[in-house]
């Protein structure tokens, strides 16, 4: 009897002693979570897809950066509906008093950027957990693409708000803002890694499944763009001691020599609406156009969009393009779909643009010049008679939204046109600006394609003017303005404006005072809700 008691005692002791902490931890067999994920190369690849998904997310809430930067540039006004709030004019005029209630205009952007950064950071810190096996060669490529995307997010943020919280691994802490140099160091380091490790396939060898992935060429182009912005805006000679001007030039020359990209021969073919307009002008049906498509030889990097967005949390489309375009009306003869009328074009931009330059008609929708019978003028804010044409909704010959015809939920969330982030024309002009020996050739190659007269010499002003015309309404011009000189004198004088527009059909004197751009240093408002939430750890930018 006594011996049985001893045996029981020992058995109990053994059982108890084996109850370590691990004994209670179980692996979730049915759900993927951070504990059991990132174990196979396939899972790492899926996580990378999640990062690219965030690239579609970043411009779907708040005011998309491509839309906002065109509003803030010297080529557009805010526009939108006559009865809408004045948030867009507020951005346009850099003046809080225009719409003091709009204190969270960019909160959507802010949140979505950090979602993307979280996804990239989560993948990057877990890459070593993956059992790569015979697929070890995929690891640097996945890492390069995730770091490229992280750099993309931070570069957008640091240009919009300058000082933002900098996270290189996931954290739920209340993180203060970092100095711009620290952010640019991460951006430069990430992009340099991507240049070394991302896919080096030239354009002609990119598989259909590879379109939209960040390549070595995309990273090189981004680095040159970051270099030019940082050195211009801050008046520095190199990019935080990590990239010199010679290196930046080397990157873009490498794209030109080895990337296999080229210009699309006809400028209008880059933009679906412009291609339709050209077809109609030539007496052909609008569907019989020469649009070059979204994977053409000029696209160095683009954000891929499709029409499958829904209201159940799936964001796959170009949700910002609908802001542009004819407000509340389609124009069937040219296939322009109905949009919200943001980014009304400054009339002088059209009027002073040489009519023989094919980029004018491909970039601007001119209401009276194109004989558009537009009946909603009284519903538009800051109407000028000109809308943009590059990123606008389309309609078919029956007037139906092409997005809906393809299967989209509606014209608002169904838009699908890719956003061309870096075109080969940009690479050529950046090379010219960075002092390439072929600068004049590159510049005139861009002009020749646009049927514009060649120029005789390359100066900074000639290049900036060329960039203004070539990249009108592509979200690039505003940051060119800011980087022209670090006193912002150039930007302030360019955005200053006084002239008459129509709001709600009534004449209104639109005034933009460039001194507000200098006061805010061209930066955007940090969302007030996030400042409140941080308990004052985040600090608002001057002037907002």
């Amino acid at each position, binding site marked *: 009897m006594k011996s049985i008691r001893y045996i029981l005692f020992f058995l109990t002791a053994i059982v108890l002693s084996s109850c370590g902490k691990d004994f209670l931890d179980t692996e979730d067999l049915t759900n993927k979570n951070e504990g059991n994920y990132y174990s196979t190369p396939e899972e790492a690849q899926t996580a990378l897809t999640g990062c690219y998904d965030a690239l579609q997310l970043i411009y779907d809430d708040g005011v998309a950066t491509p839309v906002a930067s065109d509003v803030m540039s010297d080529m557009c006004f805010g526009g939108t509906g006559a*009865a*809408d*709030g*004045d*948030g867009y004019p507020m951005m346009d005029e850099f003046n809080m*008093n*225009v*719409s*003091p*209630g*709009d*204190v*969270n*205009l960019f*909160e959507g952007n*802010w*949140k979505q950027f*950090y*979602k*993307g*950064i*979280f*996804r990239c*950071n989560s993948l990057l810190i877990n890459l070593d957990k993956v059992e790569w096996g015979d697929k070890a060669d995929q690891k640097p490529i996945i890492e390069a693409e995730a770091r490229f995307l992280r750099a993309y997010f931070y570069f957008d943020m640091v240009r919009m708000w300058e000082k933002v*919280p900098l*996270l290189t691994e*996931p*954290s*739920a*802490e*209340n*993180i203060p803002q970092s100095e711009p140099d620290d952010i640019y160091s991460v951006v430069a380091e990430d992009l340099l890694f991507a240049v070394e490790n991302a896919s080096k396939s030239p354009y002609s060898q990119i598989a259909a499944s590879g379109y939209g992935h960040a390549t070595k060429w995309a990273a090189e182009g981004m680095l040159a763009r970051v270099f030019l912005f940082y050195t211009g805006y801050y008046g520095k000679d190199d990019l935080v001691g990590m990239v010199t001007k010679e290196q930046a030039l080397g990157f873009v020359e490498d794209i030109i020599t080895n990337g296999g990209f080229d210009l699309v021969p006809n400028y209008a073919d880059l933009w679906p609406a412009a291609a339709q307009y050209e077809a109609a002008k030539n007496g052909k049906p609008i569907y019989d156009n020469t649009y070059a498509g979204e994977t053409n030889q000029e696209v160095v990097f683009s954000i891929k969009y499709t029409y499958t967005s829904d209201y159940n949390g799936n964001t796959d489309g170009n949700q910002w393009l609908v802001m542009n375009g004819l407000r509340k009306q389609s124009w069937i003869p040219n296939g322009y779909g109905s949009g919200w009328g943001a980014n009304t074009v400054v009339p002088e931009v059209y009027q002073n643009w040489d009519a023989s330059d094919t980029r004018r008609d491909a970039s601007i929708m001119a209401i009276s010049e194109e004989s558009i019978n537009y009946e909603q003028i009284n519903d538009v804010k800051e109407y000028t008679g000109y809308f943009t044409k590059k990123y606008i909704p389309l309609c078919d010959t029956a007037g139906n939204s092409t997005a809906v015809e393809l299967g989209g939920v509606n014209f608002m969330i169904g838009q699908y046109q890719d956003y061309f982030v870096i075109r080969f024309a940009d690479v050529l002009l950046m090379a010219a600006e960075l002092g390439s020996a072929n600068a004049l050739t590159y510049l005139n190659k861009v002009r020749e394609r646009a049927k514009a007269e060649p120029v005789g010499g390359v100066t900074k002003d000639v290049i900036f003017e060329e960039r203004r015309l070539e990249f009108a309404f592509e979200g690039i011009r505003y940051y060119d303005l800011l980087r022209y000189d670090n006193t912002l004198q150039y930007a302030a004088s360019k955005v200053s404006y006084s002239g008459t527009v129509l709001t709600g059909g009534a004449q209104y004197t639109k005034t933009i005072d460039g001194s507000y751009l200098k006061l805010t240093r061209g930066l955007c408002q940090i969302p*007030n*809700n*996030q*400042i*409140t*939430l*941080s*308990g*004052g750890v985040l600090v608002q930018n001057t002037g907002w």
Partner: protein
Amino acid sequence: MLIVTFDWYNKQTKDWLIPAPIYATAGTDAPFINGGDVINKGVELALSTRGNRGDFQYQIGVNGSYNKNHVQNVPTDDGIIHGATNILYANSEEFYRAESGHAIGYFWGWQTNGLFQNSAEVSQYVNADGKKIQPNAKPGDLKYVDQNGDGIINDQDKVDLGDPNPDFSYGINFSCNWRGFNVLVAGYGVQGNEIVQSYRDQSNKYSNYTTDILDRWHGEGTSNSIPRVTDNNINYKFSDIYVKDGSFFRINNVTLGYDFARLVQAGFLSKLRIYASVLNLYTFTKYSGMDPEIGYGNESANDPSDRYSSGIDLGYYPSPRTFLFGLNVKF
């Protein structure tokens, strides 16, 4: 006979389940946490009596309760559960919240001190260092109180502007019978609660105003409470001009009846009562809105953490006044 009921209570609702407010930098959706305690302390007193003098029978009941509500131990960094935005109009800011030490769902905004009557008042409105507090204001704009004296009107100047929960709620009822007649009167009321009233979409310059706007500022001395009309919402960021006293007393039911069975004297009829009632007869209140009795909180909030709000009047259909006539017959 007098019946007295007295209750004293100290009710603590602990560990509310709320989605943690999360910094955008975390990059994820918010997890649920146990957040905060709600303390209700108060007394309830009910008195009732009944009696008769010959044919006259009566019953009187009076009840009242005094309640103090506050939140404590909110486990977030700032001790605040932030309210929703976009409630009063498109892009409107947060204006109610739950914070340790304050009543649940208290209203948070700027305190005002009348209107600027002329531009001299704008330039004379300075803090201790002589800094102009609202340099861009125009005559007819609201004058906000610079609570911390830093010469800037911002979130740091927002204070507790009111509590949607009544301090005191009470009811009375009285009924009596005399021969064939009977009368019933019942009413109830609340005291010491505030209501946020917002009937206009301030984000849209074309939306309609209420007739209150006829008394707006339109020149020096014309008003010191209703700001000038602008085509933006510069004077309608959340401040105490939205906050109104929500106290009221409502006579909810008055019924008068007479039993004709006594007159008819028909043996097969034991009751033939004809009566008339008015429901919601009259409301005594200073509240300018349609109906001070609003149960509204932000029920539609996707975020369950926002469902603690109350006292927000966005223009709901008011309680109707109902006239009833009836006949009771018993065989």
